[in-house]
Structure formats: structure tokens, C-alpha cells
């Protein structure tokens, strides 16, 4: 695996996390009246960032074994929960941190070869 591939593996995780934050922001409580543009803008930005992630990921898959690049997905839960805590002010419990660390460890083990 080249260092460029590793760089792209890490970079695309940030696109994924950014995309998720915008999607959550857009969808949260859509059963209440909200300014029209707000939902559309969040969905657009979220899907745009997820698309960037998607095309980078697709090309990483072309040149590498799925089981080789998958460990990088292990960064996701930690990055995302940190982001949800920081930007969306979601309440975190000790249980959720323990669960997330277990999941991350598991993802690395599942895919590290």
C-alpha cells in the first residue's frame, strides 16, 4: 500500500464524518416547522461530502483489497462521536465511550492482516 493511498484513506474518513454532521443537522426533528432552506442546505452539503468520500473510496477499492483498506474505517466511530459531542452538543455517557472504543478495536482486528 502506498503512502498516498494511506493519506486518501484517512482524508476520506473526514469527508464521511463532515457529511454525517450535516445530514444529522438537516434531518433532526423534521416533524417540526423549520426554515425551508435549512433542511435542503444540510442535505445538500451532507450528500456532497458523502459523494466525495464515495468516489475516493471506490478508487481505493480498485487498487487495494477491501480487507486491507477497511481498518481505516476504524477511525470513523471515534471521529464521529467526538464531532457529535463537539458540534451537536450530544450528551455522552461512560457506556458509550466504552462501546465506541470496543467497536474501534474490533474494526482494526477484523480488517488488519
Amino acid at each position, binding site marked *: 500500500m502506498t503512502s498516498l493511498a494511506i493519506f486518501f484513506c484517512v482524508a476520506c474518513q473526514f469527508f464521511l464524518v463532515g457529511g*454525517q*454532521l*450535516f*445530514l*444529522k*443537522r438537516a*434531518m*433532526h*426533528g423534521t*416533524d*417540526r416547522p423549520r426554515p425551508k432552506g*435549512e433542511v435542503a*442546505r*444540510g442535505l445538500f*452539503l451532507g*450528500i456532497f461530502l*458523502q459523494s466525495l468520500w*464515495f*468516489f475516493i*473510496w*471506490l*478508487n481505493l*477499492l*480498485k487498487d487495494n*483489497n*477491501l*480487507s486491507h483498506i*477497511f481498518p481505516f474505517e*476504524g477511525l*470513523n*466511530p471515534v471521529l*464521529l*462521536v467526538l464531532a*457529535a459531542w*463537539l*458540534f*451537536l*452538543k*450530544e*450528551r*455522552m*455517557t461512560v*457506556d*458509550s465511550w*466504552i*462501546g*465506541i*472504543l*470496543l*467497536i*474501534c*478495536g*474490533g*474494526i*482494526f*482486528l*477484523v*480488517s*488488519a*492482516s
Partner: protein
Amino acid sequence: MTDGPAARLPSHPLPPANRPAIVAWLLNPYVQILIGALLASAGEVLLAKGAKAPVSRTLAGPLFWLEPLGSGWTWIGIVSYVLSLLSWLYVLRYVALSVAFPLINVVHVFVPLGAKVFLHETVPPRLWMGITLILVGVLVIARPLMKAEKKL
């Protein structure tokens, strides 16, 4: 975020009640997380199959990254991904991101299994240990939720 400094999000609403049992079950956001995880895993395996399929048409220069779109597998994978995205958007209406996202990580159990079964990729023996860790992690997060649901 475009909405300025993040304000605390208001509490999460409950999904609509008074539907037939099966519909209510399907509309349960936690069931949707599982359905979405299965769709996303199928999508991932199909994309890997499409990306590795023999290139039917080579594209010149800067468009090389569109080559995998020449495979039908890629398109089925995309459909599966889009369905999982719709399911995910539904989940986000009702569940906090810091709860939903760790739970959706069961895809990391389904994907290596799918890669092994359908793509014949060799999966190292640590697979089972990793899968166990992920499942334990998911349970640690889901357990307080299940208790809360029972009380309702």
C-alpha cells in the same frame, strides 16, 4: 457548521405510533439501523465487485475514476447504498448521532463476512475476535436503550 455555534439540539421525537404491528416494527428506528446496515454491507461488497470487474471501457486522463461505473455490479451497489442512505436519514430523525453511528458499525461485522463469502477474499484468523469486540461494543451501547424501550 453553517448554523453558527452549535446550539443544544432539542430532544428527539418518537416515531409515529398507532400503526399495524409489522409496520410499527419496521418503522422502529433501531430496526431501521439493522436494515440499513444490511443494505450498506451489500452495497460495499457489490462496489468492491464492480470496482474490480474487468474495465469495459477505458476512460481518458482525468476521467479514469469513473471507470468502475461501467460495471453493473457497481450500479446495484449504488442502489443498495442509496436505499441504506434513505433508511439512515429516517433514523437520524429519531436517534442521536452519537448513538446511531456506533450501532450502524455492525456493518463491520457484515462486510468482512460478505467479502469472505461472496468475494472469496482471505480473511485473517483475527476476524472472529474483531467481530466479537464489535458486537460487545454495540451491545454496551444498545443495552441502556433496550432497557429504556422496555419501560415505555
